[in-house]
């Protein structure tokens, strides 16, 4: 019944799964990096282990590493699990890197049912396919939407159901030229005095 530090949580997880890497972000927030193949076992271990007992999935989110200034550069999609234990009152973060070409991660909904909606959201916005999810479909965008908007290489829609997306033939500045639509040069930056 005592909260464990992130260091101890990392050691306990590493004792069971040597391939898990306890790392820290640039601003010092610790996390556990897991390979997609080991994810379900590690999450089940974190949920059921007596001393860890992460019984709550607080959040499941993700982000795109493309164009992110990191060494070495990566184009993977990161899925982040924020876990919290009501029993021991400690928390941890688990990250898994899904390669962009084959963006597949096993589902966590069999461990925490709260993951059902979170995984639909990550699928909708980032295009990560969660294997084993009972209904993997979009949750915010319309069902017939194309692309996953929070990917860094997402192209904005020209129209939706024949309704143009912008007014009066305007076009997004940062989108590369597409057939039939001229690209607009970015507006010059204002110089601040």
């Amino acid at each position, binding site marked *: 019944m005592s909260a464990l530090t992130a260091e101890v949580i990392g050691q306990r997880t590493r004792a069971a799964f040597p391939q898990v890497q306890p790392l820290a972000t640039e601003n010092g927030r610790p996390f556990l990096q897991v390979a997609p193949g080991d994810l379900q076992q590690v999450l089940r271990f974190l949920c059921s282990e007596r001393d860890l007992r992460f019984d709550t999935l607080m959040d499941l989110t993700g982000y795109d590493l493309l164009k992110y200034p990191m060494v070495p550069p990566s184009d993977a999609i990161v899925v982040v699990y924020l876990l919290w234990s009501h029993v021991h009152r400690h928390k941890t973060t688990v990250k898994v890197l899904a390669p962009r070409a084959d963006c597949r991660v096993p589902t966590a909904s069999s461990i925490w049912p709260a993951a059902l909606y979170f995984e639909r959201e990550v699928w909708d916005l980032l295009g990560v396919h969660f294997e084993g999810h009972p209904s993997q479909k979009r949750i*915010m*965008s*319309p069902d017939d939407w194309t692309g996953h*908007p929070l990917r860094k290489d*997402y192209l*904005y*829609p020209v129209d*939706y*159901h024949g*309704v*143009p*997306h*912008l*007014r009066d033939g305007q076009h*997004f500045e940062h989108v590369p030229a597409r057939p039939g639509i001229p690209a607009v040069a970015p507006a010059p930056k204002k110089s601040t005095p």
Partner: protein
Amino acid sequence: MAEPITPAPQAPRDPTQTPGNQKPGNRQDEQVQLAAVDEFLAWGKENSLFYLLFATACCGIELMQAGGPRYDIDRLGMIPRATPRQADLMIVAGTITHKMAGRVRTLWEQMTEPRWVVSMGSCANSGGPFSKWSYSVLNGIDKYVPVDIYIPGCPPRPEALIDGVMALRERVRIYRTFGHRSTTPHIVAGADAPFGSHAEKDKPPEQAP
């Protein structure tokens, strides 16, 4: 004491005809008021613009405030209705995404004629702050439903909404059931103009030199 009202002197009637005030139904004790029917109906519609209880973003807060005790839009005969079948007016208050736009169109189609649409706020007018960098926001609800009154503002003050409603009442009165329906959108002057849209009216009269 008020002076007694004396009837105006009338022209002498033709004695061969029955005087009008002697015909059945027109006697002093059974008079009826006559007016053009469509004018009367327009008067009723103008004074009972029931609006759809529908808001999608922060403009809805200003819409609620306009219905609150300080601005009390109910005094114009405007009562929110929770179903489009009973609503005459749709106030599109807030951001409309591409996903929502189809639903707005469905709600508009469920309203009975004559139906009116007020586009409230920059988001419903043109996408507002989301018009340039958002992938999901529709840039103006007028791409889906015909808009009668545009009210700029982010969000507009309740005064601006009431100003738009007054412009719409005028339009309803002119429409008169079988009359011509104006398709020209009306844009309420924004808060930047001094004294709102009445700046011209409020000018002091020019004085003689």
